[in-house]
C-alpha cells in the first residue's frame, strides 16, 4: 500500500457523506479491485486468532469483506458470509481460498457466500449471526455518526445472547512509532482522529497480469480486464478516503454505540435482566486499532 504520501482532507459540510464515500471509497475500490486484491493476503494475528476460536456450527458475517481473504479462515464448520459494496471485489471474494488455476465452480466447496450491500445496511434478520468481523472498513465512513452506526449495525447483526464481534480500523499511530497496547479502561479522551486521503497507485502492467490470472478462475474477471485496459492510464493514482483513528477513539465510539442501543457495558453478573456487551479485548496491532466485544443477556 502506498501510504507514504497521506494528505489531510476536510470534508465540506455541504457534501453528503454518502456522496463523499461513493466518490472516494466505493468508486476507487471498484476500479482498483484486482490490484488491491493482489496485495492482500496475510491475516493479522489478532484476526486469525479470533477466527480460530469460533466453535463449529456457528455462522459469521464479514462486513466489508473486500477480496474475501478472511472468508476461508474459520473453515467449513463455522463459515462466514462476505458483505461489500464493491461488486468487483465480491467477484474475487467469492473464490477466495480456492486454488489458483482451478475453475473453482467445479470445486464448489470453495465458493463463498457474498452479498452486495453497505456496512450501514441492516439487511439481515436481527441477531441471526453468531459472530461478525469488520476489518479495515469502518475507517472509510465519512462522519463519526456513520462510523458509530456501522458499529451498531454490526452489534445488531449478532446474537443478543452470545454474539461476538471484532472490529479493526486504521490508526494514526503507525507501525514503528507506537506499539503500546491500550488497556480496556480509563482511556484518555484523545478521540478526534484524522481525515486523510491515501493514494493508491494503480500500475497497469500489474493489473493486466493479475487479470490474466483472475480470468482463468472467474469468467466475470475478463470483463473487468477489458474495462481496466481501456480506461486506465499507466500508474493512475486514486485517492482513497480514510478516517485514521486516534488512541481511545474506537473504544469510545463502541461504548457510545452500545449505550445508544440501550446496552449495558460490563458483564451479565453486574447487570441481571439486562442486555449488554462486554469488551473482551481492545488494543493496537500493526498500525491498527481493534476491539472485540461479546453480547450477553443478563
Amino acid at each position, binding site marked *: 500500500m502506498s501510504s507514504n504520501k497521506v494528505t489531510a482532507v476536510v470534508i465540506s459540510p455541504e457534501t*453528503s457523506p*454518502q456522496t463523499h464515500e461513493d466518490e472516494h471509497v466505493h468508486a476507487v475500490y471498484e476500479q482498483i479491485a484486482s490490484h488491491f486484491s493482489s496485495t492482500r493476503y496475510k491475516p493479522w494475528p489478532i484476526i486469525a486468532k479470533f477466527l480460530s476460536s469460533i*466453535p*463449529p*456450527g*456457528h*455462522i459469521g458475517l464479514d462486513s466489508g469483506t473486500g477480496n474475501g481473504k478472511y472468508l476461508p479462515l474459520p473453515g*467449513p*464448520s*463455522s*463459515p462466514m*458470509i462476505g458483505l461489500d*459494496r464493491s*461488486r468487483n471485489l*465480491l*467477484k474475487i471474494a*467469492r473464490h477466495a481460498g480456492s486454488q489458483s488455476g482451478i475453475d473453482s*465452480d467445479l470445486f*464448489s*466447496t470453495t*465458493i*463463498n*457466500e*457474498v*452479498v*452486495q*450491500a*453497505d456496512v*450501514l*445496511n*441492516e*439487511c*439481515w*434478520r436481527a441477531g*441471526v*449471526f453468531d459472530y461478525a468481523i469488520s476489518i479495515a472498513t469502518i475507517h472509510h465512513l465519512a462522519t463519526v455518526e456513520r462510523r458509530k452506526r456501522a458499529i451498531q449495525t454490526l452489534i445488531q447483526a449478532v446474537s443478543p445472547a452470545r454474539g461476538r464481534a471484532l472490529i479493526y480500523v486504521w490508526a494514526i499511530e503507525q507501525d514503528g512509532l507506537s506499539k503500546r497496547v491500550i488497556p480496556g479502561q480509563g482511556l484518555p479522551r484523545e478521540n478526534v482522529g484524522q481525515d486523510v486521503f491515501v493514494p493508491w497507485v494503480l500500475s497497469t502492467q500489474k493489473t493486466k497480469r493479475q487479470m490474466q490470472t483472475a480470468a482463468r478462475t472467474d469468467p*466475470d474477471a475478463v470483463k473487468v480486464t477489458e474495462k481496466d485496459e481501456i480506461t486506465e492510464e499507466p500508474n493512475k493514482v486514486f485517492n482513497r478516503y480514510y478516517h485514521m483513528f486516534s488512541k481511545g477513539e474506537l473504544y469510545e465510539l463502541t461504548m457510545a454505540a452500545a449505550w445508544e442501543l440501550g446496552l449495558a457495558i460490563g458483564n451479565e453478573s453486574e447487570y441481571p435482566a439486562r442486555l449488554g456487551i462486554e469488551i473482551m479485548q481492545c488494543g493496537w496491532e500493526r498500525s491498527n486499532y481493534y476491539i472485540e466485544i461479546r453480547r450477553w443477556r443478563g
Partner: protein
Amino acid sequence: MVRLITHNLLACHAKGCTSNNFPLQLKDVQIALREADFNPDFVRGFMPKIEWNALVNAARQLGDSSLPAEQPEMIDDDLLKALHHVLLEIHIEEGQMTCPNCNHVYPISNGIPNMLLAEHEIA
C-alpha cells in the same frame, strides 16, 4: 452466490419496512446445483437459527421437496444430509427477491444478490 442459507438470513431493510419483511420472495430464478462437502457439525449447529417455513417453501419453489413441512424433533443423519443439500448445494445464479411487505426488488446477478438501496430508501 445466493444459496438458501443466505436467503434464510436476508431481510428487507428499506425505509419503514420493519415487519413482514422476511422471507424475500424468489422470482424468475435460475439455479445451479453444486456438490459441497457434507459437514454435519455445521448443519447441526445452524439448525436452531433456521426459519423453517421459509426454508421449506423456498426449497419447494426450487423443486426440492426433501424437507418435511414441520421441523422434526428428531435429528438424524438423513435430515442433516437433506438440510445440507438444501442450504448449501442449491445456488441461485440469476433472479430477484421481492419483499413481501413493501415489494422492494433486490436483484441477483452472477450469483451475487444486490441489497443496496438508494440513499432515500435507507431506514
